């Protein structure tokens, strides 16, 4: 029995998507992430928390900066965070195509002052699925 979507209806009312499209995680109805390329993904999704300048933000907790963040040296770390989430970061494996994930990982690792040369490939993303 799938109870969670029923409960989520407290916040989410409906989806117009065909049943097959709703096999994604239950909170995603209606809009789709159609944007292509790392910059577009960043500007439409990631900067909601990590901010337009990738410097993060701080309130009761923190959204970590991606600018000047030594953890970005590891492509695998960034890739895993995007796919699986951790500590407040939601998992995005159900939202993005392999190309979108690879593109945005490569984007943040080559912008905002980051200059890492090694690239994540779509196959690397697929390996985590």
């Amino acid at each position: 029995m799938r109870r969670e979507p029923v409960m989520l209806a407290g916040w989410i009312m409906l989806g117009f998507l065909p049943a097959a499209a709703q096999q994604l995680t239950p909170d995603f109805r209606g809009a789709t992430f159609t944007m292509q390329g790392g910059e577009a993904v960043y500007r439409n999704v990631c900067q909601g928390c990590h901010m337009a300048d990738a410097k993060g933000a701080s309130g009761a907790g923190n959204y970590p900066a991606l600018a000047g963040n030594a953890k970005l040296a590891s492509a695998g770390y960034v890739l895993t965070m995007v796919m699986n989430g951790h500590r407040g970061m939601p998992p995005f494996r159900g939202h993005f195509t392999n190309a979108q994930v690879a593109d945005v990982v490569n984007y943040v690792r080559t912008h905002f002052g980051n200059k890492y040369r090694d690239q994540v490939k779509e196959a690397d993303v697929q390996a985590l699925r």
Partner: protein
Amino acid sequence: MTDVSPSRRSLLSMIGVVAGSAAMYHAMTELGYAEGSTFAGPIKLSPPPAGTTVVILGAGVAGMVAAMELRDAGYQVRILEYNGRPGGRNWTLYGGDSYTELGGATQHVQFDPGQYINPGPWRLPYHHRGILHYAKRLNVALEPFTQVNYNAYVHSTEAYGGKPQRYRQVQTDFHGHVAELLAKCTRQNALDQAVSKEDREVLMLALRDWGALDQNYEYKKSFESSMRRGFASDPGGGIKSVPVPSEPSALSDVLQSRLWSAIASGHNYEMQSAIFQPKGGMGMIGKAMGKDLGPLIEYNCKVTDIRQDEGGVTVTYVDSRGGKEARKATAKWCICTIPTPILAQIPMNVGAKMKAAIDQLPYLAALKVGLQFKRRFWEEDEDIYGGHTYTNLPNATIGYPMWDYFSKGKGVLLGAYTFGRAAYIAASKPPEERIKDALAYGSQIHPQYMSEFENGVAVAWHRVPWTMGCQGAWTDESREAHYNNLCALDGRIVLANEHASRLPGWQEGSVTSAMDAIGRLHTRVMNP
């Protein structure tokens, strides 16, 4: 749980196949699959040993009901709260309020007196007995909340040329066509395996009744169907009083429109009448709780460390408005309601299982936009009094104000209420662009938007500094793996909040989570 007999189950699955999920869902909720609140009246705690102290982190609904009950039982309680007000997500924005989100954008709410928007929860279903108990206890005035408005719209850009359809028409047409189909199946003996002869006769009667079918079991333009979907010309008094029936949509149009997916919402257990809202905004409950607790709440506290040992719990905190000086609160026990995206970042010595449960629980993205208009055109022009319009546009929901009906002044609409991807995209934009988007989408349903708009406010929940999201984002899998570990008493620390409930996003989840947590805590206190 109700046992479903094979024939009934077959019938259900046939309804599902023939008619789509809405009718199936309707039938399933009729069978009582959903569960109600576990709130069984006010908790009764025996007096604890004198001087038993509890520090509660967060003055939201969970923290405050825990504090009220523990205080009443004789515990020495104090609450540390990040904000300068009680309530947490029990929150209403009025004209004159300012709200600064993460990233620094500050919105100065311009609503007129009497107007408001609830960025967080806004419904109190009748069976959420816990939160209703506290509203009653604290004399918070409640009024009806209208979930389903038969004259509001369901709208899809992909159906009926993008023209909004009245809920009553879509529902009547959907039910009518499905009833006619099932009546045909029954007559052609297609259901003989599933339904007994005696039941078939009753089923035929029921289908005619449910679907507004005519004497031939057909759903078509008729007085019967118009009594549900409305007339082309209404009956009236005097000479020109003859009602003119309206023309139903064809079955294929109804199915292909997918608008049926929008009519099931009101069938949901949590959406069924009666639903209530506090007069003047949901925040009235939080305010009343805060007033009741008075000096037990210390505001503007940003927790930076939570440490337990054999003697008690020490919470370190600073002034959330920018203070550096670390202060400490100590107590024998700790109830922590801090949202998990924040709690995951606070050093806290709990066991690996609870830590893993906290770390894996982000909060969902959500967006609410409040829009003030010069006049209540939805009432004046379209006969819509409260309730909701649903659309496949990214604003998803338009909620009409459910107070001050027929007033001649201004009104505030809930202009967008959305989750998931649309909410992520909205959070990535500045508040003024979220409002602009809500206007652009909503004006496809209400063309009056652009000429009547005055001002608005947009809350994207991932930008809310004190939650970093709107509610715990559980999945079936993560619940299986982590839920019990999240809720378990860990030494002297126990968590409570909607995220530690099976009613995610509902204040009832916070109340029942808090009752469960203090009940277990009390047992531990009394049985050391």
